[in-house]
């Protein structure tokens, strides 16, 4: 028996190897206590399936998304140009990431600064693995037959028109997918995008994540699936606020697949 491997681009370059895909972990994936479990689940899946991948490890830096959306274009470009230099240095061709904000920025905004890669979100990557039969799902796992609702992330959905991949991944778990009233193109934001994650909300009568959590709970789902670290935080906080954390769990797609695979 061997342990899980998490090679870095530097290690692989040292051996003269190039992985097929760079797994862009992102800041939440690296530092957020809760979300690290998602990163770990995803690398376990990659190991299990035998995908040739590497991470940047300590060489990765924030894509700059929140700085750009808060208006600080200088800081965004400083981050972006540095990241692009690193990625181009390793001749990266393909990037997969679990964070829709990193996904959007690297895919849509790095080309203007000289970073051209094929970028896919982990929901799309997982869907491909499932379709190709590379992920052997037990089907009888802990989610079987359960009611699950999926919360669309703005930066995956409206921003990049990815609506079906995460749903296909969830359906592969043999669950009952229930939709919220506002879903897909009409999906309601969790409240964290546009750099809101990093400040208190403006004065109002309610927090956005509470509004969204109420809608998710109204479906009667036993779990809320998300595909974004910020959404994960916002929905988890919302469920706690409603004192439903014992009954309703919030999971990232990769966690659900890893659980079903028994890893």
């Amino acid at each position: 028996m061997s342990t899980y491997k998490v090679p870095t681009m530097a290690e692989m370059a040292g051996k003269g190897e190039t992985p097929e895909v760079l797994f862009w972990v992102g800041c939440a994936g690296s530092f957020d206590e809760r979300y690290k479990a998602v990163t770990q689940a995803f690398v376990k899946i990659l190991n299990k399936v035998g995908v040739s991948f590497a991470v940047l490890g300590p060489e990765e830096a924030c894509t700059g998304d929140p700085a750009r959306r808060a208006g600080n274009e200088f800081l965004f470009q400083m981050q972006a140009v540095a990241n692009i230099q690193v990625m181009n240095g390793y001749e990266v061709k393909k990037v997969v990431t679990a964070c829709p904000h990193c996904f959007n920025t690297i895919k849509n905004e790095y080309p203007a600064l000289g970073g051209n890669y094929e970028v896919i979100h982990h929901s799309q990557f997982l869907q491909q693995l499932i379709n190709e039969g590379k992920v052997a799902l037990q089907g009888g796992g802990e989610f079987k037959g359960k009611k699950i609702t999926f919360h669309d992330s703005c930066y995956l959905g409206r921003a990049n028109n990815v609506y079906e991949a995460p749903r296909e991944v969830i359906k592969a778990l043999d669950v009952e997918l229930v939709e919220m009233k506002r879903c897909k193109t009409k999906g309601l934001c969790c409240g964290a995008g546009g750099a809101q994650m990093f400040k208190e909300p403006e004065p109002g009568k309610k927090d956005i994540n509470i509004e969204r959590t109420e809608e998710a709970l109204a479906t009667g789902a036993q779990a809320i699936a998300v595909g974004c670290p910020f959404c994960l935080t916002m929905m988890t906080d919302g469920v706690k606020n409603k004192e439903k954390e014992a009954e309703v769990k919030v999971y990232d797609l990769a966690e659900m697949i890893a659980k079903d695979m028994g890893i």
Partner: protein
Amino acid sequence: MSFLPQLVFLLIFAAAGWIISKRVKFLKRNILLGKDTERNDQADARWKTMLLVAFGQQKMFKRFIPAILHFFVYVGFIVINLEVLEFVLDGILGTHRLFAPLLGGLYLAAMNFFEFLAVAVLLSCVVFLIRRNIIKVERFTKPEMKGWPAMDGNLILIIEIVLMIAILTMNATDQILADRGIEHYLAIGTLAFSSMIQPLFEGMSDGALVFIERFAWWFHIVGILAFAIYVTYSKHLHIFLAFPNTWYSNLKPKGEMANMPEVTNEVNMMLGIPSETPSDPPAEIGRFGAKDINDLSWVNVLNAYSCTECGRCTSECPANLTGKKLSPRKIMMDVRDRAEEVGKSLDAGGNGLEDGKSLLGDYISKEELNACTSCNACVEACPVNIDPLSIILQMRRYVAMEESGTPSQWNAMFQNMETSFSPWKFSPSDRFNWAEKVKEEEMK
């Protein structure tokens, strides 16, 4: 036969044309107060978007009831204008129902179809008035709708109702006169809808009927010309601007923010990377981001003039839904109102943009800008592809880069990113720590 009516008609027609052309010039100049931007690529995709979204009303149908009602008014507007062509020719030539002898049986069918549409428009407008004033659909009662915007909306509906009543009255009296064999009036056959109101007029004398018929004819045609002028002062401009506005839609992924090449040059210099463009000192670096309408692109200002204040954006905005000040519709109304203010000032020989006011501060507050989650719900919701988010983000750039006016928590986030390359305050050397645990775990 006197030529006086024809002369009066021509004069009115010419005067309306002159006023409208002045208004179009004014609007065009205001829109072009915005910065130049390139939006002429992918012509095929642009025509397709325009056909689907503007002509085909694709996005309207996300909400079925208003979409159906609006569809009647829209088709009515396009089709009844064919009848206006006959009105204009009759007016100029002094004829009456010029097309009737030419089209024969087809004319009766066309008139019946027009009448059906007139009734559909009339009923739709009545329902719209009820939605605005009695049911008070929430999106029509937001703070930015108080005063003129609410009045504007009601006026448009009332004008349309009155114009439709004029058409039906004209047809009803016209056919009574024809039946009585009055000279000049042609019997064209049974008109399904106006015949229903004929009993109202049957007891009247020939003279009274001729007066009502002529009055209705003049009222309708002069009314339409007056309405066309009114539209140029109103949110109702969308009936024309929806077409160019959708043609100039943003065809890129909605999540993409436009790059700022002037920043790239400086960043490359700081990082010692040779710029692709030779580092000639740029002739004049404008402001970073947008403080006023001239910092926005002309497409942003065209968006503002195309907005008909339906409020679908605001009703789907997560910030607005949870009681924050931000309303994407208000952003668009503010841009238009500021463009109008600057335009009027320029025409009056005033200071225009240099009037001591600006879009930021005098119209749009930082509190509004800061509430946006950039979720694109407003962009997705807009039936004519208006992009309020683009304006909000450009204004945030001004606040951050020219005023250093971002909220303190964002400043802390900036600082973390500068020093530890993450929005949170963690040591960059700990970035890869998450892997330690999983690397020790045995692979199952």
